[in-house]
């Protein structure tokens, strides 16, 4: 049997390849351990459109039932819907079956605690501790509970968004938009969601097959078809979702991808213009957020990369808006402290409706930065050495060292960060111009390659 080197157990859940590492037995064991961790109550289970989702769901349900939990199946829904459902139904936890932007052969379990947030690092470690105990402690039949099914989870999610935005204003504006659902969960909900906001909607990759016909990451090279649709139909804006509907990238009316970072920049601008307050973003987020916040007299706090790290700090600081610029993840805690592409679409539409400005005009008014990123294969121990070396070398610069190292220069920055999910080290750089960003990338790549090879 092949050595299973593609299983990732981390703070962001249990990821693996179907047919290799992510076996039914492993899934059931993790689901049972999670059930034991949260206790014998309701556990919401939702999944994305991946073809393997059904098999994974059966294994999850078996594990939950066997420890006396009541699985509450909400079907194929966006990941944020699962989190919102945990809160709405007062469940004691949730499992989202999705490998997010990973290719189709992957799947994963993402665990949501009773707080309706993803497990944080400490909680994830506790769950893993239970999983590693020799006896999972299955229940006897007397304490078994039945399965519950709900088909209104997304409706609840949508209502929560509509309750918090100016639906009438958006409807009156009657926008023409395009949306790329990536054959993911958006294919089931996005058209209706946008139509109920009074939009004329053009969709691409709108079949919920889970067989991704474009690269699942919403980066420029994967958005060609969306760009064409936007141009052909003279849409104001194009929205690109990822397969599980938590992240969003944008295409302007010329059909140009504007970079994932700008979903967050726009959302921050819009929210602060209505109600100034704190902002929390991860360290891999554009400085444009800081500039926008400064214009409203607000400050930005940086957190580690990873949704739960951002939401954790948002809840502690009371920030209403935040997110992960690097992956188009906008978090608006007024709806729910989680990344949500539907919230992002609604906020951008509301911004256009209330300001009366077109998408391209708003975009032009925002500070412009260019971001580049790369990854290098590198074992974890070596990666830490690289970070330490850079910390020493740039000790007289402004540094953020909460997650890898971010070196801030005036008007530009570089982030070098060991990955949580792969054995690589990531390099990102941002500057006012493409030339400057490329130059930074070149300089730091040389440093990293030299150190990574030294092993």
């Amino acid at each position: 049997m092949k050595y299973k080197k593609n299983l990732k157990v981390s703070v962001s859940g249990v990821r693996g390849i179907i047919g290799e590492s992510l076996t039914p037995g492993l899934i059931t064991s993790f689901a049972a351990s999670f059930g034991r961790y949260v206790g014998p109550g309701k556990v919401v289970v939702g999944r994305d459109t991946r073809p393997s989702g059904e098999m994974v769901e059966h294994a999850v349900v078996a594990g939950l039932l066997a420890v006396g939990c009541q699985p509450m199946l909400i079907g194929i829904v966006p990941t944020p819907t699962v989190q919102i459902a945990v809160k709405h139904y007062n469940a004691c936890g949730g499992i989202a079956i999705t490998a997010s932007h990973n290719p189709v052969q992957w799947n994963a379990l993402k665990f949501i605690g009773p707080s309706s947030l993803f497990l944080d690092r400490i909680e994830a470690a506790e769950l893993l501790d239970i999983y590693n105990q020799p006896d999972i402690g299955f229940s006897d039949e007397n304490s078994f509970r039945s399965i519950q099914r709900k088909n209104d989870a997304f409706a609840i999610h949508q209502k929560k968004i509509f309750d918090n935005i100016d639906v009438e204003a958006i409807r009156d504006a009657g926008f023409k938009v395009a949306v790329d659902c990536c054959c993911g969960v958006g294919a089931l909900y996005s058209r209706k969601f946008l139509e109920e906001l009074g939009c004329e909607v053009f969709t691409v990759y709108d079949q919920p097959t889970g067989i991704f016909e474009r690269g699942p990451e919403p980066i420029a090279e994967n958005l060609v078809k969306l760009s064409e649709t936007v141009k052909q139909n003279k849409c104001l804006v194009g929205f690109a979702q990822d397969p599980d509907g938590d992240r969003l990238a944008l295409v302007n009316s010329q059909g140009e991808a504007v970079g994932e970072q700008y979903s967050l920049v726009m959302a921050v601008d819009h929210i602060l213009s209505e109600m100034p307050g704190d902002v929390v973003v991860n360290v891999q987020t554009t400085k444009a957020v800081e500039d926008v916040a400064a214009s409203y007299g607000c400050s930005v706090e940086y957190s580690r990369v990873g949704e739960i790290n951002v939401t954790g700090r948002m809840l502690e600081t009371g920030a209403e808006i935040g997110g992960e610029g690097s992956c188009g993840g906008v978090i608006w805690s007024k709806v729910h402290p989680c990344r949500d592409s539907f919230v992002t679409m609604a906020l951008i539409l509301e911004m256009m409706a209330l300001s009366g400005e077109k998408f391209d005009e708003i975009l032009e008014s925002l500070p412009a930065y260019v971001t580049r990123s790369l990854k290098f294969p590198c074992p974890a121990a070596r990666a830490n050495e690289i970070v330490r070396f850079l910390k020493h070398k740039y000790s007289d610069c402004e540094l953020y060292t909460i997650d890898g190292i971010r070196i801030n220069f005036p008007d530009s920055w570089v982030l070098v960060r060991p990955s949580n999910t792969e054995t690589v080290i990531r390099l990102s750089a941002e500057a006012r111009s493409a030339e400057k960003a490329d130059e930074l990338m070149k300089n730091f790549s040389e440093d990293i390659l030299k150190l990574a090879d030294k092993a």
Partner: protein
Amino acid sequence: MRGMVGGGLNPLLAIDFASALGTFLDHGKVVVGIDSRISSEMLYHAACAALTSCGINVHYAGVAPAPVVHFLTPHLKADGAMLLGAGHQGAGWNALVPLAADGSYLNSILVQELLDIYHSHQYKICPWNELGKVSRINKKEIKAYFDFLGSLVDVKAISAKNFTVIADFCNGSGAPYTKMLAETLGINLIPINNIVSGILPHSPEPRPRSAFQVNSIMKPLKADIGFVFNSDMSRGAIVTDSGETLSEEYTFPIVADYILEKHGRQQRVITNQCSTRTIDDIVKRHGGEIYKTHVGQAAIADKMLEVDAILGGEGSGSVIMRGGVRGSDCFLAMALTLEAMAVRNMTSTQLAGRLPRYHIVKQTINCPSARAYSLIRNLRNHFPDAEVIEDDGFKFIWHDGWISLRNAATEPVIRMISEWKTMDEALDRALRVRGLLERLEAL
């Protein structure tokens, strides 16, 4: 594959076992039916995940009696089936039972092959684009079973009699189908314990003590006959209109008495070593030939095929008929009994009156299984005058009665059956053996 839910039988074991079946079949489709037990749904989800990840398409029948699954497997041209339910076993237990493509239990060779895969822990596992699909078997297909049942019996004769029948479904998997059953046979069926709640109203073995509820309402409701079924419709016992609860041993002889008469002499009949002598007498009465096998439906069904027998059945209340499904079917046992009453124009009491009676005592003796084998073997020295058949445990036969001792496959007990002409003799012999065993165990 049986066990206590939680302790022995957990979803990981279910996944391993279903993966072994999936690996064994390699591809194709499998029918899965569950009984009403609360833990059966958990087992279904585990089996479903495992089978689909072996690339097997799952056709899910939901809560379905064993005979319906025996029928659906060849009917839907499936490559195998899985019954999730513990049949006659007490609350808290459950089981995974694999079936072959013709709907029968796997024979010993296939079981061995399956277990070899299970013990190796090397299972087939498919990539995302080769996973099996799950579909739900619709009501129409289940109706097809009842049409088939109707084709096996003389429905016209039965319905003409307008029988009132009370049946206790033990809140089991037969419960959802009482209406279809009544319509098929044209009877006035009064079902009791017919809620699919997963809670067993009494011990699911159709022993006389489980029949007290049926028995108590026979007279007030002027019923012609009563039946007590186990939770998956593979075993049944009869209550007569005079209010006598017959031992489950007599279900098979009553059916055999009628079928052998109908089909003439020289028919072959299969039963196990531990069933009542009544069946021997009945077969002799109709000039038939009897073959005896191990305990268990798999052995009975296998032998039936081998010698082209018309009937097979066991003292536990199970009946298999040639031309019917490939496993015990108590819907059919019920229908044939009613046909016997209708065609012969007899009451259920008169049917029972045709049987030569013996008295049977069934007891269990607690004994860890490791010890049991040698203890039973030792007993041989104590009964030099008996004829001994060592096939499935030991059977000691005297001219006027017999005792069978068998290490149970499903629990750590020795099952003892003692049968003599009178109850006193049967009890007396059972007591002697129990005393002997207990003394031997203490040594």
